[in-house]
């Protein structure tokens, strides 16, 4: 099955980003395809290159980067939501790209299921 994922919450404050990541990993392990992960609302903060979580904790941004690198997952950050929250090309973590909300609607059209994580 072809999944699209929408992440609506930032890292650490909320489990949603971790759950989305675990879902993607499990889906890929089962042979499914992740068409795209779209980051909206505070979810854009998953894509900051400035985060420095303590070394004994998970690094949510690095988890996404690793997933994208190993499985060629398209990680898209909403430009408008990002600008509101200070996420720009200058502090965008590697592996993510900034684009418009059209990428989310397109993902909804193309994927068999669009799964939302967040409140």
């Amino acid at each position, binding site marked *: 099955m072809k999944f699209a994922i929408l992440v609506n919450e930032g890292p650490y404050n909320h489990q949603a980003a971790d759950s989305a990541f675990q879902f993607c990993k499990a889906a890929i392990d089962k042979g499914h395809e992740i068409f795209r992960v779209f980051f909206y609302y505070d979810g854009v903060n998953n894509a900051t290159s400035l985060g420095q979580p303590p070394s004994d904790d998970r690094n949510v941004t690095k988890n996404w980067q690793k997933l994208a690198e190993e499985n060629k997952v398209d990680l898209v950050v909403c430009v*408008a939501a990002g600008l509101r929250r200070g996420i720009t090309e200058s502090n965008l973590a590697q592996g993510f790209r900034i684009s418009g909300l059209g990428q989310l*609607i397109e993902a909804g059209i193309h994927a068999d299921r669009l799964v939302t994580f*967040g409140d």
Partner: protein
Amino acid sequence: MDDMESGVVKKFMFVNRKPPHGTVYALEVLEMVLISAAFDQDVHLAFLDDGVLQIKKGQTPAGIGVKNFSPTYRALEGYDIEKLYVEAESLAERGLTEDDLLVDVEVISRADMGKLMAEMDVVLTA
């Protein structure tokens, strides 16, 4: 955006459950809705729980320093987004009637809202 010409038309539903102010959810759902208009999809908007307050008349959020985006709901018609559904129970629970709303909507029961959601291809909520 070659998908605009792909010819695939899905039933999209945006489910609004949160009040207009206090969080950014309502405003950013509205931004999703506006973009979806460009993709020629079958777009539906549902308002339930505190989400019915998003389309209540007489919003004056200037007092809390927030932009009043409620007039945008009235502009949706111009984007051919005309399928707006409000859950009757949510409205009644908040002491509101259809006359309190700033746009034309179809008021449907909670049970019918559930049935409508089940018919959708893509449900986006916040």
